[in-house]
């Protein structure tokens, strides 16, 4: 018991030291930066990231902002005038280096023995007849039809690629300003990675600014309602605040940037960093009511003596649970796992040192007799009912849980993985609406690129490119395929008459290809051609536009492209943004599996070590298995997809959810050791520790509930699911575990325990005796 003595003697040091550490960590926190780049979530050594880097090295970075215009007919004068004005302004702006629209995309065709080179729309049609002629012309232009205008002409698309060094926010702001400057009746939707990143940045910043104070406020109100004392609010909250500063301060200190997932770290701290403090405050109030004759040293000393182990164990399980995220493939998940684990460890340390050091220096609070046992209050009556169910009808209770498990578990068959990054945003967000437009009316929102290497003027390679394109276009998922071969074929249509066998075909000789390309590059924009072939004509790109509603469709399309890379010696690489999305989707599944496996094994092992019993490991694991199966089943039923946020859920739920069972087992064991019958011991445990568990669980749930106010859809879904999981863990601890305990009467529950009876016998507990 030297610890309590040292703590009380040097209480000021134990109070000041963590405050100083937190203040020091606020310095790096000022340099924290939000990184909205979802690609950066994947490790650099992943092939998808390396391939994208190789593509960008060869053909330049192409990550355009997409502007969709929706109207009854995009060829009508006001719409075309608006697109022309915007296109001109974007072309003139240094912030963009490549613009594609009806006024920029080339139209190369043969007519009356001449090769006509010009933009798709050279002049805005003035009459209905001219408009229809233009429509027909566009239908025959495969570089424009379905690419910058939809097949039904209800939608037009303008693409603007931000220049090097222009931030996403700058580019998006410029586009928005230009849209304001060129108003129109059309509905306009933005899309593209820069817009997505800019939206994520704005929403993450907003969330950071709103959710954190909101969470602290909610927690303060809840703590006051629970403890009716200022110290019951201020002490746990100060532990939370210091833990948040520490965990967030570690991110920049480790050189990590804030991500969407990083928002969860402070929320996690709000939700769980006060857990340990809550138990100490609850125990202090309980003892204050039970033993009004004790002084603060005796009360705090006994509370610490009684709670140090369960608090230590529950904190350890939480640390192990969130550390399961360190095995995740996504870098922010790993980072969040590590800083949260350190944050929880810090919260534990503070709860066992900083908080009691302050508490012991305070005057005794008002005695509230209701806090000894909550039997007569409404939570007490509820806990009493639960105790009755589990003690009198244990099989019925277990059966009800089993039935619930089966019903929700069936939803697992409907569980899908999220494959679109834009699902981060709310369903009605313009970006998500325009994704649907791109998939329905254009070739699809997904883009992948096949890189070819060799002599790109070699007709044999170009012919194989054509064959590969045809093979891909035959797939229902694939919309458009554009490559150097497309341009050469298009040139052959413009340079030859339809009756000529060379019309619409790749030329026979290398010289002919070279001359076609020379002519094309002379037509005005050499950089336009360099999107398809590099300067030295040794590397060419094949852009594949496709749509994928599910991971299966995604896999199918990607599989076909990979088959081409394997089969053709000149097709050397498959890359692009969609490959990263695909990698992210699969890493979500793998990350989920790894962290789930790690956390489950580690927690079972910890339970085994804590209670020295295999049965404890198995019984303690039951609520977790139950909660997780039900959780994933619910996701299936509700259509919530497994994504970058929900894939973190199991580890966090396991880490937190097991606490309730540990607290329950610990107290039950003590009550049984004290000589009570199973039924009475369970009732007593539920009325005493049950209150702490309930307050704890509700506070955690409230902490996570602030995520409902997030501007990001995935965090809202995360909030719903974590609340559901924790509620189930709580119900398991209050009903299922008591029922199973009375039913199975496992041996580990009757092993030795710190004696609860001492307090009621009037004997001084050991801890208090030495103070």
């Amino acid at each position: 018991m030297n610890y309590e003595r040292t703590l009380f003697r040097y209480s000021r040091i134990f109070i000041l030291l963590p405050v100083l550490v937190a203040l020091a960590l606020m310095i790096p926190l000022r340099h924290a930066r939000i990184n909205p780049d979802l690609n950066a979530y994947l490790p650099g050594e992943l092939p998808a990231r390396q391939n994208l880097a190789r593509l960008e090295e060869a053909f330049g970075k192409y990550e355009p902002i997409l502007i969709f215009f929706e109207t009854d007919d995009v060829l009508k004068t006001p719409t075309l005038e608006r697109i022309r004005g915007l296109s001109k302004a974007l072309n003139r702006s240094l912030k963009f280096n490549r613009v594609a629209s009806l006024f920029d995309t080339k139209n190369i065709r043969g007519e009356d023995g001449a090769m006509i080179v010009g933009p798709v729309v050279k002049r805005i049609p003035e009459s209905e007849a001219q408009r229809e002629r233009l429509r027909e012309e566009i239908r025959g232009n495969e570089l424009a039809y379905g690419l910058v205008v939809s097949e039904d002409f209800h939608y037009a698309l303008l693409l603007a690629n931000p220049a090097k060094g222009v931030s996403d926010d700058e580019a998006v702001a410029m586009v928005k300003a230009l849209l304001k400057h060129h108003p129109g009746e059309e509905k306009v939707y933005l899309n593209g990675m820069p817009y997505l990143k800019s939206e994520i940045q704005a929403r993450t910043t907003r969330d950071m600014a709103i959710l954190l104070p909101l969470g602290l406020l909610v927690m303060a109100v809840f703590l006051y309602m629970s403890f009716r004392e200022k110290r019951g609010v201020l002490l746990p909250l100060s532990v939370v605040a210091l833990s948040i500063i520490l965990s967030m301060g570690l991110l920049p200190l480790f050189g990590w940037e804030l991500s969407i997932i990083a928002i969860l770290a402070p929320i996690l701290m709000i939700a769980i960093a006060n857990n340990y403090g809550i138990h100490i405050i609850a125990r202090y109030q309980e003892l204050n009511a039970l033993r009004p004759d004790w002084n603060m040293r005796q009360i705090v000393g006994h509370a610490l003596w009684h709670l140090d182990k369960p608090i230590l164990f529950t904190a350890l399980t939480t640390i192990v649970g969130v550390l399961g995220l360190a095995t995740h493939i996504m870098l922010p998940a790993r980072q969040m796992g590590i800083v949260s684990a350190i944050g929880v460890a810090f919260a534990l340390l503070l709860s066992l040192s900083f908080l009691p050091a302050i508490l012991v220096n305070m005057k005794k609070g008002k005695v509230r007799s209701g806090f000894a046992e909550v039997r007569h209050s409404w939570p007490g009556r509820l806990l009493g009912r639960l105790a009755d169910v589990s003690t009198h009808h244990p099989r019925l209770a277990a059966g009800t849980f089993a039935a619930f498990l089966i019903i929700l578990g069936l939803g697992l068959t409907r569980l899908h993985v999220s494959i679109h990054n834009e699902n981060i945003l709310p369903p009605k967000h313009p970006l998500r609406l325009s994704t649907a437009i791109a998939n329905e009316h254009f070739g699809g929102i997904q883009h992948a690129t096949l890189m070819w290497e060799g002599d790109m003027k070699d007709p044999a390679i170009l012919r194989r490119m054509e064959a590969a394109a045809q093979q891909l276009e035959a797939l229902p998922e694939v919309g458009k395929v554009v490559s150097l071969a497309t341009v050469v074929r298009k040139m052959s249509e413009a340079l030859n008459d339809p009756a000529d066998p060379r019309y619409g075909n790749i030329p026979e000789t290398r010289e002919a290809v070279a001359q076609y390309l020379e002519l094309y590059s002379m037509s005005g924009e050499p950089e336009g051609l360099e999107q398809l072939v590099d300067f030295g004509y040794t590397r060419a790109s094949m852009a594949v536009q496709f749509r994928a509603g599910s991971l299966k469709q995604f896999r199918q399309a990607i599989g076909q492209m990979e088959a081409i890379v394997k089969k053709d010696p000149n097709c050397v690489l498959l890359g692009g943004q969609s490959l990263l999305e695909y990698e992210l989707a699969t890493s979500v599944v793998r990350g989920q599996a790894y962290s789930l496996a790690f956390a489950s094994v580690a927690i079972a092992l910890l339970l085994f070590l804590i209670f020295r019993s295999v049965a404890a490991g198995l019984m303690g694991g039951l609520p977790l298995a139950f909660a997780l199966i039900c959780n994933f089943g619910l996701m299936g039923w509700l259509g919530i997809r497994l994504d970058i946020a929900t894939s973190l859920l199991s580890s966090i739920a396991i880490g937190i959810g097991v606490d309730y069972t540990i607290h329950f087992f610990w107290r039950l064991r003590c009550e049984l050791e004290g000589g009570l019958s199973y039924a009475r011991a369970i009732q007593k445990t539920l009325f005493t520790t049950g209150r702490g568990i309930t307050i704890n669980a509700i506070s955690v749930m409230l902490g996570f509930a602030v995520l409902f106010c997030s501007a990001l859809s995935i965090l809202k879904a995360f909030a719903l699911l974590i609340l559901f999981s924790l509620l189930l863990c709580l119900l398991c601890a209050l009903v299922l575990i008591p029922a199973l305990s009375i039913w199975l009467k496992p041996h580990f529950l009757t092993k030795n325990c710190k004696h609860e009876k001492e307090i009621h016998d009037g004997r001084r507990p050991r801890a208090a005796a030495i103070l």
Partner: protein
Amino acid sequence: MKRKYMMAAALALLLSFNLPGQDARQIAEKANEAIEFKAMEMAATLSIRDGRGNERIRQIATASRTFGGVTKTLMKFLAPADVKGAAMLIYDYEDRSDDMWIFLPALRKTRRIVSSEKGKSFMGSEFSNADMARPNAGQFNHKLLGSATIAGKDCWKVESTCLNEDIEDELGYSRQVAYIEKGAYLTRQAEYYDFDGKLFKVLSLSRFEKQANGKYFAFHMEMQNRQNGRSSVIAIGRFQVGSGLEESYFSAANLEKL
């Protein structure tokens, strides 16, 4: 009386403000006249560099002559081998868009090209087609910025700002600052600024040689794009003022016979 003198003094002051403007325009016009040729024949090497160490080299023979107000230019590719023999014929009219024909040996036939995109790049290089044509001093507001020394020559620094957006779009820049050698009126260097007013391209002219008609011609022209790191060089191997080629030589039918 006193008032009369004051007005005269003010008028003189106003005129003095205008003088540099007039001077600048005269300098620009004289610089244009110093390089004007009605007809010529030349062989040139065009090197296009992508800024990453890669280079494309094109050897082109060009002949140009004006017939009845129409400047007719015929360009023939001499190298590389895969485009050797390709030829292009351009009729440059004062009052309407150009006529253009291309002969590709691989097709063994001549095709007329109707292009509305002639304003941008010259043969895929950093030179624009506008750079290849004689500038029209009337399209700009000229201003004398001072003097500077370029390649050891004392030069006037003349700023020429496009009069309107249409001219900017046609030329591909908003203003240029030319360094014109004093006395000889030879443009030694020109800086082009983009639509946002940032330095875009720098043209350097050297190896000026006096021709038979008393005018000068730069045998080395380099255009550096300061924004994308690319550059292009036109090195003249052979240059001849005037051309004895007949009008029939500059015909679409003749392209296949070259």
